[in-house]
């Protein structure tokens, strides 16, 4: 009987511990992780097919707070209607939100996305530099 009580107390403690992280404005957990980086970036067209040739190159070396995503998109891609998505470090978030139709057509003024760590204290801003494939 005593063992059951101990197990129950341990479980309660685990639940209480799991619920101890605060939530951000989007009701996502704010954790203790300080990593803020992007591991993958892709762009989809209206047919939900990738328009990037090969993989987007993600530069994380030049500056700890600034990154560059370089992607070459297929010739003829409609840059005004693309849906970006990415993979991030655990617990990190990205702003502005991805997954919405976005205009990437101003190639001289690349869009930027900021990755914010799980503890919401470390930020890294990525510039999305797009190049259009030369006419094949």
């Amino acid at each position, binding site marked *: 009987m005593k063992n059951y009580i101990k197990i129950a107390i341990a479980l309660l403690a685990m639940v209480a511990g799991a619920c101890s992280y605060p939530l951000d404005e989007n009701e996502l957990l704010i954790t203790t992780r300080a990593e803020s980086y992007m591991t993958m970036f892709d762009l989809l067209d*209206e*047919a939900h097919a990738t328009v990037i040739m090969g993989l987007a190159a993600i530069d994380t070396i030049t500056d700890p707070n600034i990154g560059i995503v370089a992607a070459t998109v297929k010739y003829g891609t409609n840059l005004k209607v693309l849906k970006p998505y990415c993979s991030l470090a655990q617990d990190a978030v990205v702003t502005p939100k991805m997954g919405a139709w976005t205009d990437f057509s101003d190639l001289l003024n690349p869009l930027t996305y900021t990755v914010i760590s799980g503890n919401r204290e470390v930020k890294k801003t990525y510039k999305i530099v797009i190049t259009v494939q030369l006419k*094949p």
Partner: protein
Amino acid sequence: MQRRYINWFLLLSFLVIAISCKKEDLTTLKNDLIKKTIGPNIVNNTIEFAYAMAIPEGKLVSAEVEASIPGAPNTRFGPSSWYTDKGGNDIPVTVATDCLTDGKNSNAVFIDTCAATLRYYYVIPEEAREKNVSFQFSCKADNGEIVSFSSPEYKISKMDLQPNITLTNGGACYLSIKQMKVFTMADVLANNLAGEIDLIYFYSTIAGIGHSLVSPATLPDYLYGVPVPVGSTNSTKVSKRRDIRDGQLGSPYSQFIDDLDFETLIVDNNEENFVYAMANPFGAFLFTGDGKYKAFIFVNSVDNTNKKMVVSIKRYAVN
């Protein structure tokens, strides 16, 4: 006391059993109806019904249907009754003669049968567009009995459907959404159709280009040398899609694009006026440059060897 409850319970149980076992009246003429066609009802297409009739003693004499709006030519009863064999195939058996249609009324005269399921084919006329149609089916037996069945009302769509248009590289490649037809350059020039060409088809072996549709007004860099008829200046907005299914256009799904989809569809100036690398099951929403039509073009098949693409189109007139 307890025994009294048991008696009541037994009595009620017998009553329930007696009611549930009440025999259906099988002595009179019966009929029933199902609509076999699913999906939007589109002008010039056919709505197919299966009308079933049976009488236990005696024979069927005739079947009749009255449509609220007269059908287009070829509206008729089929002369056969159908059954399904062990392999799931529908097998026809001729049971009627004199399947005639006159205005709103179609009828069939039976040869010698006491039970049949006739098919009724209603070809939707132009005058029914955007209206409701309904049908009053009836059947007469040789003992003078008559039964009837009223269908619900069916809404006829505003949109049009044109299946299986074959586009050929360098041949019949000039597509008019207004006419829902494809023309050769000679046709365009001979019939002064340059202003009605909305898209031009071409095929290229270049990776990423393949089977493509371009507008006459597409920038020359994206035309890949396709000849544009003199006077063709239309710029059709194109939004390529992969996730659109339509059983009437050739998708193997019972899902359909309906008027409401076109009414709420936005194909705006953010869209390009060309699309590359089309293949089954891709499609594209279109908005013609004159603002008169929205459409969906579905790729049924492509043929790299013969440089052809077969498409089906649903078109919705704006306003």
